[in-house]
């Protein structure tokens, strides 16, 4: 078996080197990926078509918004999958190993104060990252992860149940679903207004401004949707994994 593994690795490595032989040079302006009309269009037309200065955001949330919607669904699926596999419903099912009984101590002063200071700043920064995706690197995925991290910090500093007082399990799942509904909602709205799915241009009927503004605003909208889902699923995955699916005592 070990020999077969080595052989596979060697063959794969040989193939990768073979593939590399015909690559364009590093940073080559004339490489197909930079010179083909696809990149040219994105570079020259993005602002005219969508009035979004950050073309990465425009490609991600508009030109290829269909992909991004499903990337969000991948994250949602991961959350549901972990609940499906790990979660133990009801109290009568015994855990595999004896439950750790934590003695309720008064939380540590230093930890408590640090969290109190940090969490609002983390959350504010997350919102900034989401909102600023149009102009700088950022957007729903990054902002969502940062926002989710603030809840995880809360759960780590105190315990899972304390964090769940603020964000209970069913509410967190609702949040995740709402995020996808926001994203798909822009698509369905454009369907109903007579355009193709996710054709933000036809949304001028309900979004103020011209076609460019409709694109720009819709992109902000879908980024917010992504942020909702990512935030919720981050925390959901953490709570399922850290408590073996019992949602009681976490780490």
């Amino acid at each position, binding site marked *: 078996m070990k020999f077969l593994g080595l052989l596979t690795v060697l063959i794969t490595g040989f*193939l*990768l080197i*073979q*593939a*590399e*032989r*015909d*690559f*364009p040079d590093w940073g080559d302006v004339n*490489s*197909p*990926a*930079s*010179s*083909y*009309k*696809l*990149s040219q*269009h*994105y570079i020259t037309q993005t602002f005219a078509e969508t009035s979004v200065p950050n073309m990465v955001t425009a490609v991600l949330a*508009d*030109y*290829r*918004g*269909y*992909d991004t919607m*499903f*990337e969000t*669904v*991948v994250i*949602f*699926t*991961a959350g*549901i*999958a*972990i*609940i*499906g*596999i790990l*979660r133990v*419903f*009801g109290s009568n099912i015994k855990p595999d190993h004896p439950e750790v009984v934590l003695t309720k101590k008064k939380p540590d002063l230093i930890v408590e104060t640090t969290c109190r200071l940090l969490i609002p700043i983390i959350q504010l920064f997350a919102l900034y990252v989401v909102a600023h995706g149009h102009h700088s690197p950022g957007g729903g995925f990054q902002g969502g992860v940062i926002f989710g991290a603030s809840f995880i910090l809360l759960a780590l500093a105190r315990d899972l149940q304390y964090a769940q007082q603020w964000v209970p399990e*069913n509410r967190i*799942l*609702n949040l995740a*679903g709402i995020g*996808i*509904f926001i994203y*798909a909602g822009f*698509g*369905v709205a454009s*369907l109903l207004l007579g*355009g*193709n*799915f*996710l*054709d*933000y*241009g*036809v949304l001028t009927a309900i979004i103020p401004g011209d076609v460019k503004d409709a694109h720009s605003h819709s992109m902000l909208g879908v980024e917010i949707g992504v942020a909702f889902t990512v935030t919720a699923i981050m925390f959901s995955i953490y709570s399922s994994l850290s408590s073996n699916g019992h949602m009681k005592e976490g780490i």
Partner: protein
Amino acid sequence: MTEQAPILILLFPFLTAIFVALLGAKVPAASWPLTIASLGASICATLTTLIQVLENGTIRYYVGGWAPPFGIELRIDGLNALVAVTVATVAFLGAIYSKDRVESETENKGPQYYALYLLLAAGLLGIVITGDAFNLYVLLEIAALTSYALLAMGNKRATLAAFKYLIMGTIGASFYLLGVGYLYIKTGSLNMVDIQEQLIANGLQDSSTVQVAFIMITVGLWVKMAFFPLHAWLPNSYAFGPTTSSSIMAPLVTKVMIYVMVRMVLTVFGPVYAFEVLDWGNIVVWLAVIAILAGSIGALAQKDLRKMLTFLIIAEVGYMVGGVWLVDETGMTGAIYHIISDAFMTLCVFLFAGIVFAKTGARDIYAVDGLFKKMPITMIGFIVGAFSLIGIPPTAGFFSKWYLIQGGINSGNWEYVIALLISSLVNAVLFFRIIEIAYFGKKPAEGHIHHHGDDHTKISEAPITQLIPLLGTAAIILLIGIFNKDLVAVIQDFLEPFNLVAGIR
């Protein structure tokens, strides 16, 4: 709204999945009706699309209103319209079957199960209808993630098997993604049709990067479709997962991957490149022969009913991969036809295995002992599926095998023809053994004693939600067989522009 039908195919199951996941905590009972309704609506959308394709030719739907290659397009021609109808129908029938079984097999996680089930259906439908190589990867991720979870929701053994599947599946998907990445480096495009145009326009026929891309994509898909010897993940994960999960995954996941392979060969690289420039000769056909024989021998060795069927899937994958690489129009017709008929016959026998398991709780083939008396209607459904796998007319399996064999003869690949015939004989042995046990009982001597005094055996059929999908599938297998001419006409219309003359090499 008919011009929006392509996107609706996928939107119905996708949005309902999210809805089911949210509603599940409060109203778990609503999950099943919602699942059925959305998949039913999806079937309507696929049929509308198929009719449109037959009337007006290829549909190109620009998602987001951006023309390709700038945006993503859904591109539906005769091939994927047929596969989409198949996927939606199989998912619908499998969902009906899930109703009674899902609670007991997944530890009261019905809503999560249905949400993942619908997402899997949406992912597979998305893979089938898309015209964008990268979009295909994104949906592949959804289909793969949901598959792992659906299988792992069963018992402990299933979880371990699903973990192995996760490792293998991820490697396969990474190979595919790497291949798409290489294509992008050399062409600057991700749209399937556009990639082929760029490959020809830039004279990239001899580029080693493109060759490696082709190898990476093909091998990645082979891992995903469990083509021997990359099949090791399949038998245990399908045999030990919940019967409800394997009743959608066994028919669909491998077949959709074969569809993707056909699509890559024909639409992305083009048959000239795949078969002439990169002349792999008979290697792939020989690999397919080995796969067919290995699958058949593996099946003969099994006593566990579902595990036996999983080895048959491996043999069937060999049929189709071989059929594609016969480089013959009839062979390709047979491979595509077989995607459709195999989806339904695999569903049929897996539903039967599920029903037997539900009724008796036993996994081995002797569980079917005396079932002709107890469950005559179920057995009729099973016999249609079994006959189709053996290849007895007028079932679908006979006609698809007919075209495959014809293709093998046309292209002079006799080893493939012989392997196919041996495998059909093995299938006959396997299924007639089951039919014999079901009819005469476990041991001939014992059966003889009971022969006269068997009146106490009462008929106790499977519940109606398990019978309807089984009989529905059986009926579809017969219909596909009887209307084989129309189906083949659609497939050949699709294949005509590719000019796959016999003996292209």
